[in-house]
């Protein structure tokens, strides 16, 4: 086939512009009708496989096609919601997409080849097939074998793009199919359950505020399990009972240093036994050193950066919510400063020139001298994590950019990415740890000291802490009389509400959503008023059994407002912007369900069947099936059928227990029954 004219289509206008300028010497820009964002870039390029060609580079704005049920199913009263499991779905170009689709069709007429430049992930693959189907409407050859090719790229750095342009591959139909099945399932299941839930609860919510009653109770197969995690944690906090515990604290003053020994048993929940052991220790008067062990220790440098890790760190260290971090990272990617920010890969390919990338960062910024020193010696190949999505490398800086050229928020994210990358290429921090074990009465106590010998990566990765811990010398067999032995008392405090990093980790561990979508699910349940997000108070607790002298949150009765806040949320709002007693907040967000959120979860729990919509199993299975389609282990048709049958079963059971959900709603939203 002789190729003279090539039509390239990217996923976003900014990417199209960048690629056009890398490939073309002289690029002419044209607007298109009825859409100010999308532009056509025309230039000539000599492809090694095709020779000299004239190229038109344009883009879409994300998904081009819309999916909707046939018009006769549109009205909620037109059918039983379960009819949507089998109703026909129409696929068409949405009204917003018409100008873009027309632009593509016009240029497709003259093109010999369609070259897809959408982002290299599953959604991008699907968008590629959408573009192909539109282009094929005006030029059938593009839809046939060899008519469409695909570029594979993970950042928009010049050499990388040129290489991608010269090595086209094919669209991955399997991945596109996986997305197509997700779209169909989300539509069928989402719509049917949303209608059913809303109609089912409407009579209950109808009491009182009419505008409230007309609101939607929407269902999403990812949102419900996410809500489930949050409610579960909320209930754990609410039902928590604090218990006292006792511990023995030992202190010995030696060489001017107060050495604190911690009890091997940590603490006991029985006062009588604790007192007996304490007395036994005191009676023995002296303690004897059993073991002194000094050995080298290291603090490992961080793993290469994935999307999930970026979001968790963004929350913990930068005080930014997951969606925002991802948006800023996207901007940095589009401008060409960092690599594609949607990746699960935490290992760097051996062939990458990491030294070169480090060298680039020596040009400026606060880390310049560190980067320079790294190139000269001290460079160490990054650790390998366990994941490789085979599509993109870990997130890393691709070029040098002067931070002053970025907005303040972009700088924060950019700095984090650079520091993380440089830390990956550094050596682990090295220290020397001494562990001492003593026998006092019948009980063992431990103390340890740490001397940091080489900070290494810690110098650039300011987000990790490692502190020296002084310890005077001890020798085995040494006997001494402790300076202070105290029986201390404490109380357990409840776990904190689920924080954003923890929620992301739970979603990831239970297979809910992908790195690209997890942040979106969180935004959705906030938007649907199933949960509220607020800043975590600084003295927030972590574990169940940690020492704490805090008061328990008071067990207040759930109030009357319909989509009301639960007690914690209301209390939080009462203080200054949700800050704790001392007024201090961490940058991390925590989630508290609304009364409606709790009602939904408890209602589903009470229906009691295995395929509980608020548990992660159904969605996890769906995600696994998506993967299986990508791997060619199953087909879209089979997956859609199997999943619809599963949900049909859930739907039927829900229909058989209509009052359970209503009862839960009445209980929580109206405070009835307690």
């Amino acid at each position, binding site marked *: 086939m002789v190729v003279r004219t090539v039509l390239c289509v990217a996923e976003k206008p900014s990417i199209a512009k960048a690629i056009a300028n890398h490939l073309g010497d002289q690029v002419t820009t044209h607007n298109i009708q009825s859409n100010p964002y999308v532009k056509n870039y025309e230039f000539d390029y000599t492809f090694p496989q095709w020779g000299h060609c004239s190229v038109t580079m344009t883009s879409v704005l994300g998904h081009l096609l819309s999916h909707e049920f046939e018009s006769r199913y549109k009205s909620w009263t037109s059918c039983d919601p379960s009819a949507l499991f089998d109703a026909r779905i129409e696929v068409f170009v949405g009204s917003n997409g018409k100008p873009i689709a027309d632009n593509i069709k016009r240029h497709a007429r003259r093109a010999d080849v369609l070259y897809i430049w959408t982002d290299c992930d599953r959604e991008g693959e699907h968008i590629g097939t959408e573009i192909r189907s539109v282009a094929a409407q005006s030029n059938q050859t593009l839809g046939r074998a060899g008519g469409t090719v695909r570029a594979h790229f993970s950042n928009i750095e010049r050499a990388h793009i040129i290489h991608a342009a010269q090595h086209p591959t094919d669209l991955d139909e399997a991945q596109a199919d996986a997305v197509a099945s997700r779209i169909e399932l989300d539509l069928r299941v989402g719509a049917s359950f949303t209608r059913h839930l809303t109609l089912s609860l409407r009579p209950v919510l109808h009491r009182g505020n009419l505008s409230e009653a007309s609101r939607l109770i929407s269902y999403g197969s990812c949102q419900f399990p996410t809500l489930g995690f949050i409610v579960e944690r909320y209930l754990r906090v609410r039902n928590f*009972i604090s*218990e006292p515990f006792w511990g023995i604290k030992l202190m010995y003053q030696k060489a001017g240093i107060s050495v604190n020994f911690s009890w091997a048993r940590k603490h006991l*929940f029985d006062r009588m036994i604790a007192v007996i052991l304490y007395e036994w220790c005191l009676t023995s008067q002296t303690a004897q050193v059993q073991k002194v062990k000094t050995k080298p220790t290291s603090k490992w440098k961080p793993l290469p950066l994935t999307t999930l890790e970026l979001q968790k760190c963004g929350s913990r260290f930068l005080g930014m919510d997951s969606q925002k971090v991802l948006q800023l990272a996207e901007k940095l990617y589009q401008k060409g400063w960092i690599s594609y920010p949607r990746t699960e890969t935490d290992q760097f390919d051996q062939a990458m020139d990491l030294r070169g990338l480090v060298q680039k960062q020596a040009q400026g910024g606060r880390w310049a001298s560190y980067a320079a020193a790294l190139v000269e010696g001290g460079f160490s190949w990054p650790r390998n994590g366990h994941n490789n999505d085979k599509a993109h490398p870990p997130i890393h800086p691709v070029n040098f950019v002067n931070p002053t050229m970025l907005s303040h928020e972009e700088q924060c994210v950019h700095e984090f990415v650079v520091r993380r990358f440089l830390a990956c290429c550094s050596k682990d921090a090295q220290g020397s740890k001494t562990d001492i074990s003593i026998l006092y009465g019948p009980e063992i106590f431990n103390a340890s000291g740490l001397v940091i010998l080489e900070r290494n990566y810690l110098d650039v990765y300011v987000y990790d802490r490692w502190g020296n811990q002084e310890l005077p010398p001890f020798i085995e067999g040494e006997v001494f009389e402790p300076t202070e032995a105290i029986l201390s008392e404490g109380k357990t405090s409840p776990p904190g509400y689920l924080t954003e990093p923890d929620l992301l980790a739970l979603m*990831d*561990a239970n297979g809910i959503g992908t790195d690209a979508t997890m942040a979106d699910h969180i935004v959705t349940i906030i938007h649907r008023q199933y949960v509220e997000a607020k800043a975590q108070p600084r003295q927030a607790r972590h574990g169940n059994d940690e020492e704490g002298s805090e008061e328990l949150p008071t067990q207040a009765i759930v109030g009357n407002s319909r989509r009301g806040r639960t007690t914690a949320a209301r209390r939080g709002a009462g203080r200054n912007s949700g800050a704790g007693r001392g007024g201090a907040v961490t940058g991390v967000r925590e989630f508290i369900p609304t009364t409606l959120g709790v009602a939904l979860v408890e209602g589903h729990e009470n229906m009691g069947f*295995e395929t509980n919509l608020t548990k992660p199993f159904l969605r996890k299975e769906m995600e696994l099936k998506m993967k299986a389609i990508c791997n060619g282990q199953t087909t879209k048709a089979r997956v859609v059928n199997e999943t619809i049958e599963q949900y049909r079963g859930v739907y039927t059971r829900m229909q058989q227990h209509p009052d359970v959900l209503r009862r839960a709603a009445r209980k929580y939203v109206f405070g009835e029954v307690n």
Partner: protein
Amino acid sequence: MAATMAAELTQHLNARHLYPTASWLQTFLSTTRPITPLPAIKQTALFRLLASDITTTLKQPAASVFPSDVLKGTIKSRIVTGPVVCQVLDIEDIGHSRWSQVESIEAKERGETTKGREIVRVVEQENEGTADAASPVQSKGPFKLLLQDAKGLKIYAFDLRGIDGLSTNMAMGVKLVLRNVDVRRGVVMLEPGCVQVVGGKLDALDKAWKQGRKERLMAAARTVNTLA
């Protein structure tokens, strides 16, 4: 024949520090068939005795029960030579809050420990190389037990170092033989060298114990909470 049988049995059981009452022996022998070989009878006798409530089935020679003033809290430490035979009536994990124990029971009830229905709740943090093991299936305590000797005296005991066979998974009614134990302020200090776990159980007690465990833990948590 019956006399020698009784003698054999008595010797067999005494060697294990078990001194059954004459009436128990009689009752047992009346249930055996003469053609059963002796070793089998010995085994059955041991099994049945260990499954019995020792307050009704064992003789109470002074050496095999606790001294009558053993519960005195004013005595800091005393050694009880024994060998004392006792049965375990209760065991508590005092190294973990009752609330956290309730939560693990509830997780099991929800079926989250069955394959395919696992909900991952503890996400391991990236660490400095010292792996902090996710909570083990069986807690290592330490454990506080409630023991009862043949006279019916109840006394608390504390498992100092961990003894094989003593955990919250054990059956209630297991028989122990204690030798040269240190009793501090009325609590028996159990160490591996002085405890022999003989075995057995009390069926009814064990069943009730297992079924009521969650409720007891919750009630206990509420009690200590109000006292604190």
